[in-house]
């Protein structure tokens, strides 16, 4: 079978990245300065490839790549549809800008570890890309472990207090991965297949089987730890702030969301027409956002506050997916196209991956810039720093307002889609569950404004910080690009919303 060049890109995105990781290590022995350029160039090439993949998927159709020419279910298959390609582009977009930021901030935050930092960073990107392109569930486990191992090392890279945070994260993350592996083992025991698409055909007659149900629980707990959903979130508020700021940005912005992607890929594809998990996701999502919101309000450390806000946003995304599944569970007979409210809720959740990723990554990078300027993470010492560092300050304000959900920024549209879908569902389905969801969702979105606005006020209006200069160009550039993206994406959201709806139809089985 002849494949067009673009159809080779899914495997190349992963292979180039992994080769580059070891090239960086060797280049680091010869010339320390070259490491960041190799990393940035690789991720740029990957990003261009991912755009080609997205274009191909939207215009031509799903890409199936069989590794070594072995047909699935025997061989490993890389399967890229609109959802994968969408997440892949976000991963690499954030990855590129964080790598540019790291060029300067690494010298400041972990001096002298240039080569090893970029090697591990590139492995981390490899893992993230691998999870998104693969269509084989065991392969997904391996990539989740690659990205997690890189993440443990990166979290601990600053030494001191970061070591214990990294160790706790390692223990928790390994337990999660082991549960995921156990779930895979259960499914393999009853079906004898590891291909996700193949499993989705073999599983439906077996839903009554206790082994299949146990595997289902293991998937939720295992991936729940990876995506830090309440009550499995305890590692996150320690691990994310302890990392260097570009890594905090990647961890909070996209890594937990890739965990979420793995969860919806496993749940919605492997267990179609078994939508009882809608209620579980809904409850977990609402709990994580409410609890984390209460904690976030009292934080004095900027990065810790942002870490709690990541759990809040994880809750919003999980609630969106939960609403979609809950609506589907109320539909009496599964039809070809999902109800409008369900696809809208899922589209909102997927768009929120983008809007939260961009917003949160930017604010974390901005906190790195502030740390560069005045060597502190405490909010009390940051009064008016935004006036001394105008690019960082104004961009961060845009990011915070986008996370808050202020129109016309990008964050507004994703939150609006989720809330609108719940309102639509109340009309068509009704019930206490959806009304409670609506009230809690509104409460949390408004409550979150309290601390986002407080941070904005501290940065821009108050006074009291020591004088500082703007950070160097590579650190300012990504923050400004993210701010422009939030603004432009918010002013012209239609094409992004269309893309998210298309991806949501794929996962809900209507595409």
């Amino acid at each position, binding site marked *: 079978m002849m494949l067009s060049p673009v159809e080779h890109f899914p495997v190349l995105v992963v292979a180039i990245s992994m080769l580059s990781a070891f090239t960086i290590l060797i280049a680091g022995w010869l010339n320390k300065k070259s490491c960041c350029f190799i990393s940035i160039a690789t991720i740029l090439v990957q990003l261009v490839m991912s755009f080609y993949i997205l274009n191909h998927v939207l215009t031509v159709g799903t890409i199936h790549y069989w590794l070594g020419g072995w047909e699935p279910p025997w061989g490993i298959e890389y399967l890229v549809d609109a959802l994968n390609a969408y997440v892949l582009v976000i991963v690499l977009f954030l990855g590129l800008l964080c790598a540019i930021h790291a060029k300067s901030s690494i010298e400041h935050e972990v001096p002298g570890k240039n080569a090893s930092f970029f090697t591990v960073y590139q492995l981390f990107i490899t893992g993230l890309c691998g999870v998104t392109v693969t269509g084989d569930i065991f392969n997904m486990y391996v990539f989740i472990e690659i990205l997690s191992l890189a993440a*443990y090392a990166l979290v601990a890279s600053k030494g001191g207090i970061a*070591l214990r945070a990294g160790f706790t994260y*390692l223990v928790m993350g390994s337990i999660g991965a082991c549960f995921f592996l*156990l779930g895979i*083992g259960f499914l*393999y025991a009853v079906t004898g297949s590891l291909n996700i698409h193949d499993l989705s055909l073999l599983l439906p007659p077996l839903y009554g089987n206790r082994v299949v149900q146990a595997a289902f629980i293991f998937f939720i707990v295992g991936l729940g730890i990876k995506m830090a959903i309440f009550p499995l979130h305890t590692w996150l508020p320690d691990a994310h702030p302890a990392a260097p700021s570009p890594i905090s940005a990647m961890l909070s912005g996209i890594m937990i969301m890739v965990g979420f992607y793995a969860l919806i890929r496993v749940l919605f594809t492997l267990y179609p027409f078994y939508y009882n998990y809608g209620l579980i996701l809904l409850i977990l999502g609402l709990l994580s956002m409410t609890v984390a919101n209460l904690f976030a309000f009292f934080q004095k450390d900027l990065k810790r506050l942002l870490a709690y806000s990541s759990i809040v946003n994880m809750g919003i995304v999980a609630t969106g997916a939960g609403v979609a599944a809950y609506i589907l569970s109320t539909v009496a007979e599964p039809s070809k196209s999902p109800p409008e409210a369900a696809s809208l809720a899922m589209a909102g959740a997927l768009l929120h991956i983008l809007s939260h990723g961009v917003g949160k990554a930017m604010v974390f990078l901005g906190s790195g810039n502030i740390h560069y300027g005045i060597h502190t993470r405490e909010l009390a010492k940051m009064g008016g720093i935004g006036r001394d560092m105008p690019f960082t300050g104004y961009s961060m304000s845009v990011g915070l307002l986008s996370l808050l959900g202020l129109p016309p920024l990008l964050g507004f549209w994703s939150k609006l889609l989720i809330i609108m879908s719940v309102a639509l569902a109340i009309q068509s389905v009704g019930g206490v569950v959806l009304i409670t969801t609506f009230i809690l969702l509104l409460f949390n979105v408004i409550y979150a404004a309290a601390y986002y606005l407080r941070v904005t006020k501290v940065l821009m209006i108050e006074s009291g910080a020591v004088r500082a200069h703007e950070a160097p160009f590579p650190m300012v550039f990504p923050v400004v690009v993210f701010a422009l993206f939030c603004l432009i994406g918010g002013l012209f959201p239609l094409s992004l919303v269309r893309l998210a709806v298309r991806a949501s139809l794929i996962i809900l089985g209507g595409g």
Partner: protein
Amino acid sequence: MMEWLIEEILAKYNYWVSIILMLIGFYAMIAKGNLIKKVIGLSIFQTAIFLFYISLGDITGGTEPIVIEGYKGIYVNPLPHVLILTAIVVAVATLAVALALVISMYEEYGTIEEEEIIEKERELGV
């Protein structure tokens, strides 16, 4: 009672062994304060899952999965074993990162007891 014991426990002893090992590992990770003991617990936990996979692949009376002309019997499924080879590599890498972290913590604080480390962190004011 005797029948139940034979059917549920003795006939499925391989699952019980891996469950018991898993719980031992889990207990060590939660309850032990010594970081090395936590790492050992993690290792036991992972090994329990490997044993579960390995026992899945085996069939009584099965032979190695090499095609022999004229052989009419049954073969053992090799795939779980191959998967576990990959998972063992992952586990070794996890162990290496964990031990590296413990060593750096020992260099930083001079102890590997978690409570003492937390106390020293408090003294340092972080």
